[in-house]
């Protein structure tokens, strides 16, 4: 069986749009791996997430060409609730992801597992696990409508985790987080990969996060993959800056050191890390 989430020549056009938003994208996400996605605004990163979860064209319409397969099965052959248990999507706007039907964070996170009709004990177990994974146990009884942007983002992430998907598609999960929150989420994602073996597609502007946890990085521009490969190589590629993507801090320091005519050593690299 062809395991993994695999896009082959995937092109997507929104309903009513004249231009393609994704152009012939080839991408592979295997279980236990983290693939980072970067690119300038309007490069198709969020659309890629919608396509990979089957929401586009499944829910919002539009036209998909090429192939998007999950463990050898075309996504178009799967129903949305089946996909939700396989591919969990964290939206860029966390607030819109919340159900607005729950009085507490706990019930908000339980919304997805409850939809699956799981036994109550399993729902409770999953919710506590998700809360612990994102470090929000103390917020369990809080009103989800009264959270800060960062807390809301973490609750949305926990609500995705509670569905126990095998693949996680995260659209800028740290965009509303401060450096400490970003660091926390990066550590949580590393833990999720290790503990659950989930594959993660991580759309992220903060390339330092990608440098830390991504195995591979894909760079999108105008809907097409313009760079791809191992995270270390792609994030050090000089073309990254031309594409509007700031390289990680380590790469910037290395360039500055070399530009100053100083030597760059493994010890120095380790110190910067």
């Amino acid at each position: 069986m062809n395991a993994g989430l695999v896009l082959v020549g995937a092109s997507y056009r929104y309903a009513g749009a004249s231009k393609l938003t994704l152009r012939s994208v080839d991408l592979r996400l295997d279980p236990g791996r983290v693939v980072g996605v970067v690119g300038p605004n309007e490069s198709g990163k969020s659309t890629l997430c919608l396509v990979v979860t089957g929401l586009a064209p499944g829910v919002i319409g539009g036209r998909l060409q090429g192939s998007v397969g999950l463990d050898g099965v075309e996504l178009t052959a799967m129903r949305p609730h089946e996909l939700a248990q396989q591919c969990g999507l964290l939206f860029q706007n966390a607030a819109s992801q919340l159900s607005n039907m729950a009085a507490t964070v706990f019930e908000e996170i339980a919304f997805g597992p409850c939809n699956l009709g799981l036994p109550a004990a399993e729902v409770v177990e999953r919710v506590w696990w998700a809360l612990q994974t994102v470090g929000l146990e103390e917020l369990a009884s809080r009103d989800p409508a009264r959270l800060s942007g960062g807390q809301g983002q973490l609750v949305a992430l926990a609500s995705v985790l509670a569905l126990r998907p095998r693949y996680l598609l995260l659209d800028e999960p740290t965009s509303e987080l401060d450096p400490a929150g970003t660091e926390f989420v990066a550590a949580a994602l590393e833990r999720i990969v290790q503990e659950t073996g989930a594959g993660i597609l991580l759309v992220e502007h903060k390339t330092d996060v990608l440098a830390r946890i991504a195995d591979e990085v894909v760079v999108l521009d105008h809907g097409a993959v313009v760079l791809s490969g191992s995270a270390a190589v792609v994030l050090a590629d000089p073309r990254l800056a031309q594409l509007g993507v700031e390289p990680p801090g380590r790469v910037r320091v290395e360039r500055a050191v070399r530009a100053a005519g100083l030597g760059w050593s493994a010890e120095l690299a380790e110190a910067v890390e």
Partner: protein
Amino acid sequence: MTKAVLAVVGAIVAFGVRGWTGPAVVFVVVVLSAWTAGVLRRMAPFALATLPLVVSILVVNTFLYPNAHDAIATVGPFSPTWTGATAAAQATLRVVAFGLSAALFALTTPVDDLLVELERRGLGRRGSFVVGSALGAVPRTLERAREVADAQRARGMDTEGGLWRRFRGLVPLIGPVLFGALAEVEERTMALEARAFTAPGRRTILRSLPDSGWQRAGRWLLLIGSLAAVAVTLATPVRLP
């Protein structure tokens, strides 16, 4: 559920029992209950919301009541009548009593409790979501309007002052609030799908609200009693004031 039944009974009695007695009883019971629950002041906006309907009832009935000849006064072609004014006042009391009864229910019932109960009684996930979304839409829209207004003020727009100035200040709010809400619908639809909302079968219900035998019996008693009161006033010569 008991509070929902009380609101329904309030509507049945306010509109079904003839004369002043039905709406007056509902009005008094609702006001006293609201005072006891400490929500009397918060009911003012709900009472104001009935104002357009009340004004139209007063005008139409007072001036155009059919076959009424006991004119209060005659001003040109208009002849308001005592019969019409009495009917208008009674209809107004019915509307206000019902409106306040519904308001009392809304102000004293947490939305999530209502949704849990409705779902437990078989409304289904879609039905309860529609109810929950509708109830949640009002505070969300107000919140968004406040955010947009703050943003517009920060850019120099004047939204304070006289009525005309405030009205002009509303115009730039309408677009962002309306289009923002419409854009949110698509995102929310996708988010629901991503959270397995359309999975077949019943949802898991994590909690149930206490519901004693006394409460159940009381609900039936209220429903049967209110329907009986309506039947008595409609089908028998008994005339309530």
